[in-house]
């Protein structure tokens, strides 16, 4: 073993720089990999733990207080799927809140701090919950996205006294945020808004989904209006959607980086072996066995790989708080990253295993090495042809030498090509992400949200045509997200619209939206659980009335986990004949005029119940999403650019070092530096060009599927990303130009080296 270490030490000394650069790339890869795994292994687990710790209900229903009685809770507890039920009084209001620097209209439920019952408890994370005088404990989600903090003033002049976390209405995923008032403030608010009093019924059950269905059915049978409802699994998916996307992006990216670092290590070992062939021959001649030499060669990579993987796993703990903040921004859940030995060991073992395989592949040749041939520099491979004979091939000397250089360095060029190919795909992946999130955030938003008009008008009168005539209004459409229908005993949220043709966000990812009263589009989750196909006839019911509908397509809905349906107004009326649409979605030609349009509507129409400046809400939501994922995008772009330069530097400097003596010979016989630089760089061009073209083509072909795979994890089946060929070409061109520039910059070094030294070194 001592002999192995001696050999390894010698190999390490000679290949210091290449092992260092390999380690640097591996460090980045393991850092990202360990971070992604830790997030993946822990966020969900810690979320569940907090859910349990706060004894959060598995399903919850907000009903008008006037329809609620204590008997209702008792009756729900009798249901087979329900273990326990509890009601909590609240006041549900639409409040204008400052989010990310702009005012956003939000639906909020205000509870009393006094009512921290058995189910759905809260915990204070900032300030206090002193239940005296006036005051409010705001949700952590509101705290993160606004400038509100203990001591500042909330709406209705409530002083903020603390920040709390709870798992039911802790973020805006259900389109409702829960805030907790002191008893005095709660009573004050209740007195001012008695008509908005609600009760949130929390249900503890082994299966949230089952309880959700049973309770929905029961409430429906009893004619109790459900204002808002949700269940644990759905809620978790909504709250952790960004976290899941983040994990997948990091896993995909770190995987590509790991693969590239392994390819580079394989190449470096292969190159070192060729350079050290004579020495290896001498070692064999001295009596070292093939395995001893192999171990000596791969040991430095294994030791540095092990060290770097440990370091990467350790450093990931510095990155995790940043990721934790990003996760908190969307989920409102404060995730405290802790040590995850399983994730660390997984990263270390996977890295070591892959390094062993990738280093053994080239090193295994040593076993067959004939010592005398190695010492004499005789290659055992079959004789290579002399390509492009100069006296017989057309073309100038520079061109011919460039061609020869390309053919003669084909192994390195193939590797450079493979690496560039992966780098093109990785860079395209990142740039497309950046383009669709930061530059065109609507593409990202449309993937994750449902319909988003400019203004929402709630009215009891049929004023659609009048509204359409207003300045800046391009389109007015009746659209209702609050309807529900039952299918196979489950109640589903149903989007009802007079038309799905002119909406801002087409949710249909396969087939088409319903166009007639006998058609329905079905959410992705319902499709999967019920095994539905386009053309199937399904029976929908409401209040005991049943009708058949033909499935025309499938729709996505991240916020409702794909458990939604789409019907036309006429279609809905078949099972709800008394239905009168009361929500009009307005689409403006200039969304900055939304405020003016709302003012005009409120001034001229007395029949308006409420208006929502949705454009403004969307804008702040967009800012939120963009800042969330944008941070990650920028980090990944910076890492990608660094990696590209680092890898190109390693590969190209290796190629140049390898050709150093040859360059010296060329210089000796009278070749100028410029000629040599052109010849060298020209040799990289065909391979890099081919790799860039292939990388661009493959990116164009697969990126849609890659993003599809990533977003499917959060229930988005239709990724509204665009993949502009121009941008992909720009990425490829950028990489090509970088290759040439780095190649030329490195090749310039030969200018400073004297011919004599080049030959002798």
């Amino acid at each position, binding site marked *: 073993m001592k002999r192995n270490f001696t050999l390894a030490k010698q190999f390490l000394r000679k290949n210091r720089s290449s092992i260092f650069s390999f380690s640097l790339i591996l460090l980045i890869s393991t850092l990202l990999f360990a971070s992604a795994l830790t997030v993946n292994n822990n966020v969900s687990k810690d979320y569940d733990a907090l859910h349990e710790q706060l004894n959060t209900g598995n399903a919850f229903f907000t009903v008008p207080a006037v329809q609620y009685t204590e008997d209702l809770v008792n009756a729900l507890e009798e249901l087979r799927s329900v273990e326990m039920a509890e009601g909590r009084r609240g006041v549900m209001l639409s409040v204008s809140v400052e989010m990310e620097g702009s005012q956003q209209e939000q639906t909020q439920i205000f509870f009393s701090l006094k009512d921290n019952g058995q189910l759905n408890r809260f915990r204070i994370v900032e300030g206090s919950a002193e239940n005296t005088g006036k005051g409010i404990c705001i949700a952590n989600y509101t705290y993160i996205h606004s400038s509100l903090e203990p001591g500042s003033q909330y709406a209705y002049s409530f002083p903020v006294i603390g920040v709390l976390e709870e798992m039911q209405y802790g973020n805006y995923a259900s389109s409702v945020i829960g805030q907790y008032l002191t008893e005095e403030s709660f009573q004050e608010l209740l007195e001012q808004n008695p008509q908005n009093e609600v009760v949130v019924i929390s249900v503890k059950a082994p299966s949230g989904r089952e309880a959700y269905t049973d309770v929905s059915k029961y409430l429906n049978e009893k004619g109790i209006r459900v204002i808002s409802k949700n269940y644990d699994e759905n809620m978790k998916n909504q709250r952790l959607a960004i976290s899941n996307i983040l994990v997948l992006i990091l896993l995909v990216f770190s995987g590509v980086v790991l693969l590239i670092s392994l390819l580079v290590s394989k190449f470096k070992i292969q190159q070192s072996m060729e350079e050290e062939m004579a020495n290896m021959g001498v070692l064999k001649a001295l009596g070292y066995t093939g395995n001893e030499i192999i171990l000596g060669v791969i040991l430095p990579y294994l030791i540095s790989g092990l060290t770097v993987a440990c370091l990467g796993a350790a450093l990931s703990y510095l990155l995790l708080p940043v990721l934790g903040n990003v996760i908190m921004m969307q989920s409102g859940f404060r995730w405290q990253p802790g040590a995850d030995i399983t994730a660390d060991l997984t990263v270390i073992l996977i890295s070591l295993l892959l390094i062993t395989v990738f280093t053994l592949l080239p090193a295994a040749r040593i076993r067959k090495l004939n010592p005398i041939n190695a010492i004499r520099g005789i290659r055992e491979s079959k004789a290579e042809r002399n390509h492009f004979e100069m006296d017989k091939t057309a073309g100038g000397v520079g061109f011919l030498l460039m061609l020869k250089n390309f053919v003669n360095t084909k192994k390195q060029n193939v590797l450079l090509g493979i690496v560039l190919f992966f780098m093109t795909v990785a860079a395209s992946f990142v740039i497309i992400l950046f383009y669709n999130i930061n530059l065109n955030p609507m593409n990202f938003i449309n993937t994750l949200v449902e319909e988003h008009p400019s203004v929402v008008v709630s009215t009891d009168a049929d004023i659609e045509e009048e509204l359409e005539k207003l300045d800046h209004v391009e389109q007015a459409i009746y659209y209702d997200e609050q309807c529900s229908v039952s299918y196979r005993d489950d109640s589903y949220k149903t989007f009802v619209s007079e038309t799905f043709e002119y909406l801002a966000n087409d949710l249909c990812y396969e087939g088409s939206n319903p166009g007639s009263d006998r058609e329905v589009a079905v959410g992705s989750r319902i499709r999967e659980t019920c095994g539905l196909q386009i053309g199937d006839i399904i029976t929908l019911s409401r209040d005991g009335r049943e009708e058949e509908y033909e499935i025309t397509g499938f729709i996505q809905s991240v916020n409702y986990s794909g458990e939604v349906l789409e019907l036309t107004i006429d279609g809905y009326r078949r099972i709800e004949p008394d239905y009168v649409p009361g929500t009009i979605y307005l689409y403006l030609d200039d969304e900055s005029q939304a405020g003016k349009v709302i003012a005009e509507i409120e001034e001229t129409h007395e029949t308006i119940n409420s208006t929502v400046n949705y454009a403004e809400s969307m804008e702040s939501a967009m800012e939120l999403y963009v800042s969330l994922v944008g941070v990650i995008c920028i980090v990944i772009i910076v890492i990608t650019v660094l990696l590209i330069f680092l890898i190109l530097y390693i590969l190209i400097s290796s190629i140049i070092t390898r050709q150093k*003596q040859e360059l010296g010979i060329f210089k000796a016989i009278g070749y100028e530096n410029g000629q040599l630089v052109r010849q060298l760089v020209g040799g990289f061009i065909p391979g890099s060009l081919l790799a860039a073209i292939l990388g661009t083509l493959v990116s164009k072909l697969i990126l849609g599927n890659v993003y599809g795979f990533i977003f499917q994890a959060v229930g988005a089946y239709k990724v509204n990303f665009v993949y502009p060929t121009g941008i992909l070409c720009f990425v490829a061109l950028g990489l090509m130009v970088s290759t040439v520039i780095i190649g030329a910059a490195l090749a310039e070094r030969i200018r400073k080296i004297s011919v004599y030294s080049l030959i002798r070194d």
Partner: protein
Amino acid sequence: METIIRTRDLVKSFITESGTQTIINHLDLDIYEKDFTVIMGSSGAGKSTLMYSLSGMDRPTSGSILFGGEEITKMSNDKLAVFRRKYCGFVFQQVYLLDRMSLMDNAMTAGLLVEKNKKVVAGRAKELFEKVNLPEVTYRKRVNQVSGGEAARAGIVRAAINRPAVVFADEPTGALNSDNSTAVLDVLTELNRDGQSIIMVTHDRKSALRGSRIIYLKDGKIYGELSLGSFQQDKEERGDKLDQFLKEMGW
């Protein structure tokens, strides 16, 4: 004979850990056209350093080198490259052929730098390959597929292809067996007979016998000089003269 290379006050020193080491020490030297100049001396005397300085492969620390009347120490690297391709040919001990090419392509690579017409260059290369006794089947092979002697002779073809003013040979027989050494020396001798100026660095007495002028270096200076005249195979006194000279030099 006309002077083709003239050095004045030539100094080449290296900075080492133990201080500055002067290899060429204020050397004044004239090299004559059509001469076969042999530079000898003990190891570290500065033979190769002098030769590479004279050919513009390495830069001296100070002093001047006039090559064909042109001062080469002031030339830029690229000017030196152009100068080398036109006026210098090199034969190295390790041959240093471009090993991923055929012997022919090695010659063409050098030849096409000066003469753009491929046919002319190829014709001249074939002539030289014939002269060094390398048949087509051999000169079409890649460097790693031929013997050391064949490679050495191909090195001479490459050195001579542009009809340089001077062929510089650094221990051209150092890595060859006796037969191959003789073959290489014969080719160099024949080239010289055709009017080619040659400067050769050697340790080998047998190689030195081919020279018309022997310069012995010691501590970076000319320690002694011997004129042998043109090489004649059967003249025994030539060998005696050289032996006597080398004995005086402390060889």
